[in-house]
């Protein structure tokens, strides 16, 4: 581990150098295996947040109150420590720079992590690749301003005419926000995303209930199920 950046009170980004790694695809995850002195091991999957082409990658880890691995990664592991990492893996929930389709990203809370990798990959994509000119929208549903990851970088990315970022606050909104905090509903969702007629590539990531609900609304709203890719952080166990 070569660097660490706090994101919120309960999340931080770990920068890892993986000797031999030659880049990864935006949206992939890695498995982190921790081994205790007595040989006990625990494995969890974490999405890659970065889009760097070389042998470094960032993981943003949210501490779960009942987590086994995440508290260690958020509070204990230090720059210079070694971690056992497998991956990056996954060939489905990935953005392909060869695809010129408009892209709709929909994040619930810490589900923004793999979607951030896609935004970053888009920003650094080879201008000759079809995806470099693809318009991106991110709809980011989050508890409150203190829970937002990558806030200033998202502001900077949104200055591109190709990138639109909408943050919806569910419990506490910042001063001056014109929308009172409330949960995402179907009408707000459909107003915020690319119309189904534009046939966007849709990526939804968040807690299971969030992803289930959003994907159902999108299908009811006319989006093709075949265009909607989902990644769920299960209610317990999947990604503590």
């Amino acid at each position, binding site marked *: 581990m070569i660097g660490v950046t706090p994101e919120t009170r309960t999340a931080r980004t770990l920068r890892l150098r993986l000797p031999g790694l030659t880049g990864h695809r935006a949206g992939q995850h890695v498995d982190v295996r921790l*081994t205790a002195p007595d040989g006990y*091991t*625990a494995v969890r999957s974490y999405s890659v947040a970065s889009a760097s082409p070389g042998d470094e990658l960032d993981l943003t880890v949210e501490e779960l109150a009942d987590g086994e691995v995440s508290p260690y990664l958020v509070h204990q592991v230090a720059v210079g420590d070694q971690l056992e990492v497998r991956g990056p*893996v996954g060939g489905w929930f990935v953005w392909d720079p060869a695809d010129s389709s408009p892209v709709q990203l929909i994040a619930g809370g810490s589900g923004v992590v793999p979607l951030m990798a896609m935004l970053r990959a888009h920003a650094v994509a080879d201008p000759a690749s079809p995806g470099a000119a693809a318009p991106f929208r991110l709809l980011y549903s989050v508890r409150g301003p203190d829970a937002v990851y990558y806030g200033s970088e998202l502001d900077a990315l949104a200055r591109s005419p190709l990138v639109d970022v909408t943050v919806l606050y569910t419990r506490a909104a910042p001063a001056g926000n014109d929308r009172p905090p409330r949960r995402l509903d179907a009408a707000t969702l459909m107003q915020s995303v690319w119309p189904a007629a534009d046939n966007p590539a849709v990526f939804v990531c968040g807690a299971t209930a969030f992803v*289930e609900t959003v994907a159902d609304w999108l299908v009811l709203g006319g989006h093709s199920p075949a265009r909607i890719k989902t990644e769920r952080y299960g209610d317990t*166990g*999947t990604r503590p």
Partner: protein
Amino acid sequence: MGIVSPGFFGRGRRDDPALPPGQHLTEGFPVLSAGPTPRITPDEWEFTITTETGQVHRWSWAEFLALPQDDVSQDIHCVTSWSKLGTSWRGVSLDTLFESVESDCEFTMAHSYGGYTTNVPLDDLLGGKAWIAHEFDGEPLEPEHGGPARLLVPHLYFWKSAKWVRGLELLRQDEPGFWESNGYHMYGDPWREERYW
């Protein structure tokens, strides 16, 4: 032993012989799916087994429920590292469904409503090792867990237990299904940690 993380002790149940390497217990029932949940009513549901000669064996929902039913209690292991012990299911054994099927094939591809596929060797479906399950914990299987019915092959990682299953296709040669084409192991034995290629 891998790299030891100083200060990490873990909270898992060590020495639990039911827990494959790298897995941890969950009391919930997490969901892992690649896309939206298909909504299939029992009226439109059917299950087929298609042989290498193109012969199709077909069951409607009513015909399927009229077959002998098994109540099974099994441990399940998801590749994302959770395991759930002693889960309760009700469904039809694949042995029952294959009784009248003539085939020389050794491999199968499970096909699901919504387009999901996964490959399972025929040997792993027979001999009391696999079911088409339609109840979980005494209740009809919910759509997000694969209802109306899913394949249940508990001795392999759970992505092999295809949700919303609609048929099995017999194959002469093994072919990758959906996750197997996307970085996951062709066989998926949790005891050998066959997670990825």
